[in-house]
């Protein structure tokens, strides 16, 4: 079976500027988050896979087809761009219906699908107003409805939550998860770490046009396990507890930080946890909490970029 998206040695130049550098990756089913700072190459990646850009070298395939040469692939792909682009002369209902017609549905079926997409994306309240007067969030939902009107197997969303209020962000996250739970795939980009962490099981980290890492958050964390990992321990008799940890093989560094917590740097977090339990048991220390301040994508991203 063909992978959802496959890039083979894909590079893309904008004049003398490199947008994407020799990228080879296979994107699996489910929700995949494309994570990177602004200018990292996320939009270039998504535009290449939706056939808007032609690769300078390499091969892009979506469900085994070239998106530039074979437009039939768009029966299975819905795309919502990051650009705030809508036909200002049309209403959301007209826009979505036109897109449905372009997908080859008859007039009647296009109308039915339009109504379904309007309901799914929550566009009902302003479906017959001119797109010109819609708010940013309403325009975003309209674009989203247009992207899913043909119920594609892969939904490609470029920065879908940018500019949305928290309620609308939640709605988009829910929609992505519903879409994936129905056995379809979602590939979305974001520069906001917690959005990607909250929405996706699979993360692709991109920076300066290169794929830094990919996999689940846990897998990515294990990829950098040889780097120092921080634990913060809230414990009584903090100095004594710190002294008891010093000298253990996996402890690199111990310090007391704000709030009287003990911060321990280790190269093997799982072994350090055993050391902490052992030291607390032997010394009779009362441990209130153990937290890992860098066990998130932000810290991971910083490590990978370094």
């Amino acid at each position, binding site marked *: 079976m063909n992978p959802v998206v496959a890039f083979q040695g894909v590079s893309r130049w904008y004049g003398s500027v490199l947008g994407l550098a020799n990228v080879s990756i296979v994107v699996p089913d489910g929700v995949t988050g494309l994570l990177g700072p602004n200018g990292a190459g996320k939009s270039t990646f998504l*535009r290449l896979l*939706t*056939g*808007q*850009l*032609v690769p300078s070298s390499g091969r892009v395939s979506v469900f085994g087809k070239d998106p530039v040469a074979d*437009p*039939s*692939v*768009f*029966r299975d*792909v*819905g*795309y919502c*761009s990051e*650009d705030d*682009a*809508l*036909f200002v*002369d049309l209403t959301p209902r007209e*826009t979505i219906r*036109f*897109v449905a*017609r*372009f*997908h*080859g549905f008859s007039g009647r079926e296009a109308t039915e699908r339009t109504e379904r997409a309007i309901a799914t994306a929550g566009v009902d309240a302003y479906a017959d107003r001119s797109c010109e007067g819609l708010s940013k969030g309403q325009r975003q939902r309209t674009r989203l409805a*247009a*992207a899913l009107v*043909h119920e594609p197997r892969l939904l490609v969303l470029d920065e879908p939550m940018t500019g949305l209020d928290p309620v609308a962000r939640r709605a988009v996250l829910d929609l992505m998860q519903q879409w994936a739970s129905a056995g379809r795939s979602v590939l979305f980009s974001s520069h906001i770490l917690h959005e990607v962490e909250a929405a996706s099981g699979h993360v692709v980290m991109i920076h300066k046009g290169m794929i830094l890492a990919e996999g689940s958050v846990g897998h990515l964390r294990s990829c950098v396990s040889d780097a120092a990992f921080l634990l913060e321990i809230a414990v009584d008799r903090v100095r004594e507890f710190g002294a008891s940890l010093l000298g253990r093989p996996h402890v690199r560094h111990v310090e007391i930080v704000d709030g009287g917590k003990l911060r321990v740097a280790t190269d093997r977090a799982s072994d350090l946890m055993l050391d902490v339990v052992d030291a607390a048991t032997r010394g009779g220390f009362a441990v209130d909490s153990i937290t890992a301040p860098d066990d998130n994508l932000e810290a991971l991203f910083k490590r990978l970029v370094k």
Partner: protein
Amino acid sequence: MTPFRNTLLVAAFTIRQLLWRRRIIMLLALAMIPGFFGILARSFARPSASNGFVNVLPELFVAFLVPIVSLLTSGNVVRDGIDDRTIVYPLSTPVGRKPYAIGCAFGAFVVSAFTLLVAAASAWIGWRAGIARGGSDDAALMTNLAGVSIFGLVVYVPFHALLGSLFKFPTVIGIVVYGVVDLLLATLPGIVRRTAPSAYLEALLDPAFTTRNAATEAADVFVAITPGEARFVVPVLGMLFLGMFAMQMSRRDLV
């Protein structure tokens, strides 16, 4: 979906977009210019076969309205979508780039042809409507003028659409090309006239019209363009430009 059906879908969408945009007001204003001149001619002279108004019409249509109307419709037919990024909507569907390009050109052709028909009707109404015998002789002349003008769109529409796919400001470039080709080269006698599409259109006009082509023929400087040559060159050039436009659209980045 067949490419033909996709082309028709895109053409229908293009027609709707062109008719709904503010540009249609400008097109209608242009279409009223011949009628306005007709009213002026009628106010100052009795309509007759020798009326100078008839001799104004060839230049007004084939050397002005046809290129300008076509530029306004087809020059921006894909450029607007590229600039405001709405081109992503049709091209993120199975429509395909070549049917999209051809559909856009066809839609622009229909709107331009409609505008030129209105222009020919306005000329006839402004000049001859309501007079004795209803100006039926001139109706045949107007039909010829409208037909030749619409035939001219076969070459101008794909050419201007191609400009729109290549350049950021196709209207500016189109006006420069218009100035050089249709206003300068087409007025020169001899071989250089053959670079101007409007010169070929003149060769197809009714002999009752006084044209630049007729003037060249009279001067006997070089061989004038014949109607047969014009009937061959115009569609061939049109197909060439349409092919280049479709190829350009199928290869270029969309954003």
